[in-house]
């Protein structure tokens, strides 16, 4: 049975702090000085610790911390039938492989269901699994087959749709699609959202679309305003949109006053690009300002993005502050 959620549920975006020793181990694996089996054991230990940290902090919707993912591209392309990945093309785990698509993508599972089972085994809380979206993958993969980025993205949407359904079969109830490249290519939005709708078609889960300004190496890849998303995003067949506000300020919250948004909103209240830990009071203030434009029953509280570039101690304290600040506001609301 899926655990119920309180008002203003808290969640993470996906990734949790990556220990430096695990980074070294990943590099050792790439240099063939460590076996896959040993590395997977390390991954699992770190995933369990990440779940535990989130539970202790009091996060309502947890992830497995994604320690097993080198980055948000390779984890998917390595598993995607039809993508040719040059496994000798990187020495540092966080870099991207050279990956190329020469033929139409085959339909096949990526094996992410294992993550759903892992979370079901090691956490009693509601959990979430994220997938990189079609637009993001299009921007990173070398396309030698499809006639356009749009055609490529739509076919990726088809393949990822199969995977989302596999995840639901394995018990996943919360799925997230990550699209950090929208903000750099706003002109792509019409076809990028078509690909999202292809990806979520018939998937029986709560689906979040996370759109940030990038968090590669803990820094933004783009700057600007979320205004470009509107009104196009209103047609996305999703249940929740997740945006970053902590680092960028809350100016764009006004967009939710201007437009009648048909889904709930996850607001970033924790800046993941600084090691300075927010106070619970500061978090509460941010939530209160969001409540001025978004009703409580449609608001979810998250960090701006993944916590992968933060030291574990900082990441944990930030989650604790987020949870405590949220509880303060819940009490004020009498819920």
């Amino acid at each position: 049975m899926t655990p119920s959620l309180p008002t203003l549920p808290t969640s993470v975006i996906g990734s949790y702090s990556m220990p430096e020793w695990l980074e070294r181990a990943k590099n050792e694996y790439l240099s063939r000085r460590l076996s896959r089996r040993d590395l997977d054991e390390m991954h699992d230990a770190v995933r369990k610790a990440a779940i535990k940290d989130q539970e202790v902090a009091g996060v309502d919707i947890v992830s497995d911390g994604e320690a097993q993912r080198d980055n948000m591209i390779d984890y998917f392309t390595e598993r995607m039938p039809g993508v040719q990945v040059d496994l000798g093309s990187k020495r540092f785990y966080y870099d991207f492989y050279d990956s190329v698509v020469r033929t139409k993508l085959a339909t096949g599972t990526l094996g992410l269901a294992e993550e759903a089972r892992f979370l079901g085994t090691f956490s009693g809380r509601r959990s979430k699994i994220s997938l990189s979206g079609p637009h993001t993958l299009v921007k990173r993969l070398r396309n030698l087959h499809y006639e356009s980025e749009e055609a490529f993205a739509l076919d990726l949407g088809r393949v990822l749709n199969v995977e989302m359904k596999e995840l639901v079969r394995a018990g996943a109830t919360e799925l997230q699609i990550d699209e950090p490249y929208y903000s750099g290519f706003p002109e792509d939005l019409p076809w990028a959202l078509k690909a999202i709708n292809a990806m979520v078609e018939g998937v029986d889960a709560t689906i979040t679309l996370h759109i940030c300004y990038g968090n590669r190496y803990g820094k933004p890849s783009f700057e600007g305003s979320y205004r470009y998303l509107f009104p196009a995003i209103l047609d996305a067949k999703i249940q929740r949109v997740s945006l970053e506000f902590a680092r960028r300020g809350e100016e764009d919250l006004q967009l939710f006053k201007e437009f009648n948004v048909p889904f709930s909103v996850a607001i970033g209240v924790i800046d993941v690009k600084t090691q300075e830990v927010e106070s619970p009071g500061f978090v509460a203030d941010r939530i209160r300002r969001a409540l001025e434009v978004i009703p409580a029953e449609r608001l979810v509280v998250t960090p701006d993005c993944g916590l992968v570039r933060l030291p574990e101690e900082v990441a944990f304290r930030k989650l604790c502050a987020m949870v405590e600040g949220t509880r303060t506001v819940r009490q004020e609301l009498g819920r």
Partner: protein
Amino acid sequence: MAGLVTGSLMSLVEDGVLDARLAPSLRIHLDWIQYKTNFRDPVIVRRTASPQGQALPLAEIAVDLRQADAATLQADLARAVRSLGEGAEANADQHIYLDDFRPYRDCLIWRFNRLFWQHLGDWEAASGQGFEAALPGGTSDANHPQAVSDSVADFWTLLRDLDNRGQLPPEIVGLEIGVGNGARAAAWLDRFKALDEQCGTTFYSRMHFLLGDYSPTSLERALEAVAQHGSHASGVPLDALNPFKALASYRFKVMYVHLTNVYDNLPFDDLVRRDGKLYIVEVRAYLNGLKVDQLTAEFGMSRGDLPGAVETLLEGGPYAVFPGEKGVAFWRRLWDTFKLEERLRALDDREEDHVPPGLSRNHLEDLLDEAPDDVRFHVSRGAGESFANTLPLLHPRGFLQVQDIFVSEMDDYRKGFRGPGKLDGSLVTWVNGALLRAVGARAGYDVHFAPFPYRPGTKTSVLYTTQRD
């Protein structure tokens, strides 16, 4: 000169000063030091010490081939060899020691350096020349007109691209760290304004150029130099080691950062690998015993007065020691006499103080794996710290350019001694570019080095960053 060193050593063996059985294991380093004036006497002995500072048997003699005098070389070598023997007289040269052994990063040269930049005007008035004239090339590469013009053109192209994509921020922020006399910032802004007008764009109207420096004198001069740009330029007192501290509100907003000859003037450590073991170079500041008597006679002091006078100078400036020009003259003469004795202290496996901010010990070890054996190299911790604390200011499409003297590959340290050198009142040392490359990679930037093509024969190169994908 190298042949003379060998010949002199053979003579010392024949004279019985040097035990022939020791000769094969005696380590002699011959260095050609770029800077004619530096902190070493022509022939020095470096002893080794345990991590706790206890003496170890290994020692080496280092000869500065540029300073060494053929007439006195044999005597200098003999003195060095004798000082290695049991029962050698401690401080035979009657140096006046000002400090204990400590790593370069913590030694007195940095207090002298700070004093110089704080009282730059006094020093220049006494020397009769601006500090740029004291640079090895007699001029700063910062102000080369073509270099400035090309820099502006590159930046303008970036702005135009962003504008075409509708991604140009409302305010365009530029930053110069270490402003010198402001000539470069002024030339850059003049050129930027002219290009903007020529191309019919409106970038200049959105431009805000920050001039950052910790020297009040430099900042004041620089602001005068850019006065005609009014509110488009402003000064920010900042420590080059941590620009982010003073400019936190500009996080991810600065489109262009430029530095010239700042990193070569920031604290560093020197590491040495000998026979597979890693040592940190520690230094002890002293006043050369042979020159001290002249100094004391000139200023009517005793030898015993000198350590206190040095402390007064460093604490309160030149006028706290003597009033008027005499205080500055004392400072200048003292700087001539100021030297550093070196020793090699073995590093403890758990010691991490030498690891620069922006890197972990593991990263430093990765870097050491690239270094040749039996090599001495810089851990440019000040440059690394400054770099790591500047990168978070950069806009996602922004870039950083540094004109300086870089050792871009660890292997290049095998090709010579890279400083520190003594400048007129301050110091300079080459910067470990390979280390900055590692710091950049951790922060998501690729670091590149290109020759500075505008002045033939210059040792300056240009570091620039690109986003690491």
